[in-house]
């Protein structure tokens, strides 16, 4: 009779699912470190990590240790953080703006980041003092600032009551910064630079080192925790902002905190690895399909699924064509689009 109350067995199944996903994430990360142009046996990987973290002295060839420690491990950790952040950002924005098509790049952040990166790379803004990442981060924040200012001005200061406004403002901002990027490339870039920029625009994990890990891990952890902290408020937005307010959510403050948190996460990730499409849009929908729409389950599920998906996509991007690394965005779209089609078709059958 009271079937919807989670019984012990349902709770047990959920715990099992969560543990299973966490193990899958660890296995994917381990696989991500082992697999590559130079395959490295798992034993060597664990020995290297143990040597570095716990000061053990297992014998490991220096070249292999270098590959594991400086290239693979950093790359896999950043990929996991990035996937988790983008997926959670997507889930949060879809709930907050009540739009199934919302994704982390909605507010012009990725186009701003591209324009910033291109300014540094091609125009030499900052005369060599600014790194690509700093330029991208500055561009992302500039675009985000302009978009939210435009949305606020157009809304006459009533917050985001008409959430359509922020989406339209985001489109305007994205178009402007994309045009700027194209203009700079067309006007000033040589062929070599243009190729480098294009690679970066599609997402690129190859430049990732330990300092990036030092940024990605805290940003992802803090950002995801802020979003999980607001899980009940996010549930309350399902019938709109007025209904959320009548359920006790301080709407304007929650919108400001969550849009701020998602923007910082997205800007940080974009500045390290470029704009990786599809993760923020599709992973939340896939996660909803598995665990339902309530955010207490949806946000952790999105984070785990996003992390696993992006680490796996990175592995594929390294090995699918011998001696060549593809932009990771190509893989996420090639794998993600058909996968999403399957989800849509199965969801339809279940309705």
């Amino acid at each position, binding site marked *: *009779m009271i079937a*919807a109350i989670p019984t012990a067995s349902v709770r047990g199944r959920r715990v099992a699912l969560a543990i299973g996903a966490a193990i899958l994430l660890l296995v994917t990360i381990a696989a991500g470190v082992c697999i590559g142009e130079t395959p490295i046996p798992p034993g060597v990987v664990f020995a290297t990590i143990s040597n570095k973290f716990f000061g053990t002295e297992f014998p490991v060839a220096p070249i292999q240790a270098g590959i594991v420690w400086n290239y693979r491990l950093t790359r896999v950790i950043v990929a996991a953080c990035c996937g988790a952040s983008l997926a959670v950002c997507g889930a949060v924005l879809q709930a907050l703006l009540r739009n199934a098509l919302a994704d982390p790049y909605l507010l012009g952040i990725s186009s701003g980041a591209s324009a910033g990166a291109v300014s540094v790379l091609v125009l030499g803004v900052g005369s060599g003092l600014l790194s690509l990442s700093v330029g991208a981060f500055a561009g992302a924040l500039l675009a985000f600032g302009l978009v939210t200012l435009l949305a606020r001005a157009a809304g006459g200061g009533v917050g985001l009551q008409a959430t359509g406004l922020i989406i339209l403002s985001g489109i305007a901002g994205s178009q402007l910064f994309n045009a700027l990027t194209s203009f700079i490339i067309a006007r000033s870039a040589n062929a070599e630079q243009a190729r480098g920029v294009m690679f970066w625009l599609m997402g690129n994990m190859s430049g990732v080192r330990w300092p990036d890990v030092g940024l990605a891990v805290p940003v992802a952890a803090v950002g995801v925790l802020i979003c999980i902290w607001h899980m*009940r408020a996010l549930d309350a937005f*399902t019938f709109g902002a007025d*209904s959320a307010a*009548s*359920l006790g959510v301080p709407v304007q403050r929650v919108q400001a905190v969550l849009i701020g948190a998602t923007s910082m996460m997205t800007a940080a990730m974009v500045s390290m690895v470029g704009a990786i499409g599809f993760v923020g849009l599709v992973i939340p929908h896939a996660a*909803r399909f598995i665990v339902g*729409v309530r955010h207490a389950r949806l946000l952790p599920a999105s984070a785990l699924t996003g992390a696993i998906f992006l680490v796996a996509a990175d592995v594929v991007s390294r090995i699918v064509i011998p001696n060549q690394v593809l932009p990771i965005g190509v893989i996420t779209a090639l794998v993600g689009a058909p996968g999403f089609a399957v989800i849509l078709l199965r969801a339809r059958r279940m309705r």
Partner: protein
Amino acid sequence: MILTTRNLGYTVRGNSIVRDISMEIIEGETFGLVGPNGSGKSTFLRLVQGILAPSTGASFLQGESVASMPRRRIAQMIAFVEQHSESADRLTVRDVVELGRNPWLSALQPWSRDEDRIVGQALADVEMRAMETRLWHTLSGGEKQRVQLARALAQQPRLLLLDEPTNHLDVHHQLSILGLIKGLPLTAVVALHDLNHALMCDRVGVMHRGQMVAVGPPEETLTPDLLHTVFGVRVNMLHDHVSGRPVMSFTL
């Protein structure tokens, strides 16, 4: 007085939607709010609970200014059922009713057995317990209104505000929703379209062009003269021999 408004007004770009309303809602009563389309009923219901910030005046919950109360505490005292509530999410009936516990739960506080009991009781009160696993978008209009009413009851409020809860419902569901509201041991303010439904309330308030032009017991307040001014119709008061209650019939 559970709710008091003082000179409450709301103006958008020079158009005043609600003007200078000072009134009181008495603990325990069912108060009917009537008035033509666009007379400001919905805006008034949003103003008194602070979802909209008033341009002038203020409202007070048991003497405390609503504007200075945290949203959470307002939601522990007032529950609101909107005219339309649509969601694109795949929510079950129970998910929707569980939202009503939001004002009582802090960020990471776990869901307790008490919560389950309150939600179950609210579902039983509106006779939707058997449908708790149904998906929201498969429900009919009347079922949706009942589920939203259950969600409001799960909030355990002191005051229930309802914006035309019988709109778009067939006559059976109109009467069953109204009977349900009247039977609750709660203060309720209900915006209504049907003047015959207003006759069932303890008191009514008549809104006209943003102002509260009359307040009082329905049979004394809804006079033919007033209704002619406000709605532009002529009213004949009839007597229903079966129910023993007055009934209105209208002509242009």
